């Protein structure tokens, strides 16, 4: 076995899962030419892969029959049982002594609740936890400051907590945020700390670890989009999954800097895992002011570990102009200047390359009727032919262009239903030499809500000769929600304009037309 065989064998597996970059694929090919052991190993892994695919396909083939058996079993089973609480209550009511004990317990509970809430005097709290997300959505300025605890060790030493700060001026689409990137293996942990400042037509990335600065040019649409993503990030950090709000309970109160805060707590256990989070939020009931936020987490029976700890959570506080200044601090090397800055590319969903084939899902939007719009492109880097002909003759609502990789459908991630979203052509735009396809994906069955899924798998097929067999499944996020024609004009039309040379979207792409098309596509699917 050679020195690099271990690494190469990882590549073989990655290639099988469709996760290998072109550079690594080249290294793999070169190695296999000279290493008989690894060739044998690749062949063996290939055999196992084929056997497993066939094995699980056989199991899958019997799913309908299995489900039918379960339905029959349910149909012939006994009735549902009473809820525990009712059973307990009936037991209590059967006995005179237990009835008296229950009455005493209820009175004691009432006194306890009175002491905890201090209510019955008409001064009930004006703000509860369920009001908090709305307050932040409406805020012009959001400020978050605190710490992130990584709970990692670096060669036996505990890694210090990392500072977190977010200043987001939603009104003017500008922000200044910290960003920490962690690299950790079994022994060493290293960090890169950056700060990203977006203001006007520039984005500056300050690398505090390497002490350098880099500028990008950024257009109006991207500035709006990046600000939107930063707000979503704050929501993710502060509120996690919004469903947790149903579980928040008031557990006490605390006075901080002269303000009395209610303390709200909840625990959320992640579906399908042992991961549990505990949230504690300090909320001033009379003003809705947030005093503090802490999040602990644990896996299984491990002890709780503190993760996010924010000491300042502010809304609509005054901001100093200097906060968003794009000046390179003293002692930092400017790797470029505003004059030489390149435009930042609109591509939030990431680039996917396999061999010579590339798929770029640029941006996605979730429409109010459950359908999804995706802007994407695909190229074969080995082909120099123009793609213009592939878009000729395409009709509104018709088939998709036969690009090297065609995203023919979407599948919601984390949704147990069978719904698939087949794609139809809406329009295409041109930006420089790139042709971007805009497709509409309409669910062919009951569509999950936004909060019920993690995103969408992109189902792609390869339309050019390739030795890849099939295109690996990759995914995009849930998309920007589009609920009104104003949202559509702002986000969808804005994105199309951003990704076209003339700065305009095709005129026929309107909210009403797209919804009507989705309805038309959906109608024949209905039973």
């Amino acid at each position, binding site marked *: 076995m050679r020195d690099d065989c271990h690494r190469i*064998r*990882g590549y073989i*597996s*990655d290639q*099988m*899962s*469709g*996760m290998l970059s072109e550079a690594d694929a080249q290294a793999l090919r070169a190695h296999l030419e000279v290493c008989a052991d690894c060739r044998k190993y690749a062949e*063996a*892994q290939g*055999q*196992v892969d084929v*056997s*497993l*695919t066939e*094995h*699980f396909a056989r*199991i*899958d083939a*019997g*799913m309908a029959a*299995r*489900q039918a*058996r*379960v*339905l029959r*079993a*349910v*149909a012939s*089973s*006994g*009735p*549902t*049982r009473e809820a*525990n609480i009712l059973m307990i209550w009936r037991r209590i009511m059967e006995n005179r002594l237990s009835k008296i004990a229950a009455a005493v317990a209820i009175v004691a509970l009432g006194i306890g609740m009175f002491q905890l809430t201090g209510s019955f005097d008409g001064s009930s709290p004006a703000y509860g936890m369920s009001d908090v997300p709305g307050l932040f959505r409406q805020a012009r300025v959001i400020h978050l400051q605190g710490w992130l605890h990584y709970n990692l060790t670096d060669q036996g030493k505990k890694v210090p907590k990392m500072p977190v700060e977010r200043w987001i001026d939603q009104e003017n689409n500008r922000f200044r945020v910290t960003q920490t990137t962690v690299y950790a293996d079994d022994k060493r942990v290293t960090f890169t700390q950056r700060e990203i400042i977006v203001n006007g037509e520039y984005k500056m990335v300050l690398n505090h670890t390497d002490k350098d600065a880099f500028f990008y040019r950024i257009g109006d649409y991207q500035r709006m989009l990046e600000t939107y993503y930063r707000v979503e990030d704050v929501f993710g950090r502060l509120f996690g*999954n919004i*469903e947790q709000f*149903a579980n928040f309970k008031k557990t006490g109160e605390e006075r901080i800097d002269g303000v009395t805060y209610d303390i709200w707590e909840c625990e959320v*256990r*992640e*579906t*399908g*895992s*042992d*991961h549990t989070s505990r949230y504690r939020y300090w909320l001033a009931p009379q003003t809705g002011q947030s005093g503090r936020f802490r999040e602990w987490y644990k*896996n299984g029976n491990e002890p709780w570990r503190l993760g996010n700890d924010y000491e300042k959570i502010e809304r609509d506080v005054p901001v100093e102009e200097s906060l968003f200044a794009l000046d390179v601090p003293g002692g930092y090397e400017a790797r470029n200047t505003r004059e030489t800055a390149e435009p930042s590319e609109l591509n939030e969903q990431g680039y996917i390359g396999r061999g010579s084939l590339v798929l770029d899902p640029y941006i996605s939007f979730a429409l109010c009727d459950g359908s999804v719009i995706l802007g994407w492109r695909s190229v074969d880097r080995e082909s120099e032919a123009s793609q213009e002909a592939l878009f000729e003759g395409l009709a509104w609502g018709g088939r998709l262009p036969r690009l090297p990789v065609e995203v023919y459908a979407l599948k919601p*991630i*984390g949704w*147990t239903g*069978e719904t698939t979203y087949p794609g139809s052509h809406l329009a295409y735009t041109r930006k420089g030499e790139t042709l971007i396809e805009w497709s509409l994906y309409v669910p062919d069955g*009951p569509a*999950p*809500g936004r*909060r*019920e899924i*993690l995103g969408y*798998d992109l189902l792609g097929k390869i339309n050019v000769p390739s030795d890849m067999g099939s295109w690996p*499944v*990759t*995914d995009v996020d849930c998309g920007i929600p589009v609920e009104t024609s104003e949202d559509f004009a702002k986000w969808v039309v804005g994105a199309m304009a951003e990704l076209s040379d003339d700065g305009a979207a095709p005129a026929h792409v309107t909210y009403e037309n797209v919804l009507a098309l989705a309805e038309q596509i959906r109608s024949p699917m209905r039973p």
Partner: protein
Amino acid sequence: MNDAVDDNVVQACQQGDRAAYAKLVERHYRHVFAVCLGMLGNVHDAEDMAQEAMLKGWASIRRLAKRGRFEPWILKIAKNLCLDLLRKRKRLRARAAGHRVEPRGRTNGKDDLEWAIRELPLELRVPLTMHYFEQKNARNIARRLNISHSLACQRIRAARDELYALLSKGGPHER
């Protein structure tokens, strides 16, 4: 996962509507079966446990206070049933230790593979099943199991390696 759609259906079930429960079966059975298959590694056991979980779900549905949380609730029932079965098997194996087990007769490749999958440790079998049965990529698996992306890749690879090693030994007939 939040299941707002399930909320009304669960409410109907709690009032004794069996047809409503059929909707929940249709919506969640596949995932419940996949979880059982991953944990047990055997189709027949997975079928039994998934069915038992769905029946138990029906019998106890009035106890489900958070109606929008049917999926995590039913998955937990299924997982507990699988864990009970695995514990029971472990006890049986411990009791059988010391007894000589006669070699089985020659089996075909399909049986060998089923045996080999069952031999995998849980932490390899679950991601392997998610990858091949639920067709989840490493990123999705990592998210679902709350592990890193590289660990998910590593486990799928280790599962394949382990399977190859087990199958190369010749399967259960040569044990």
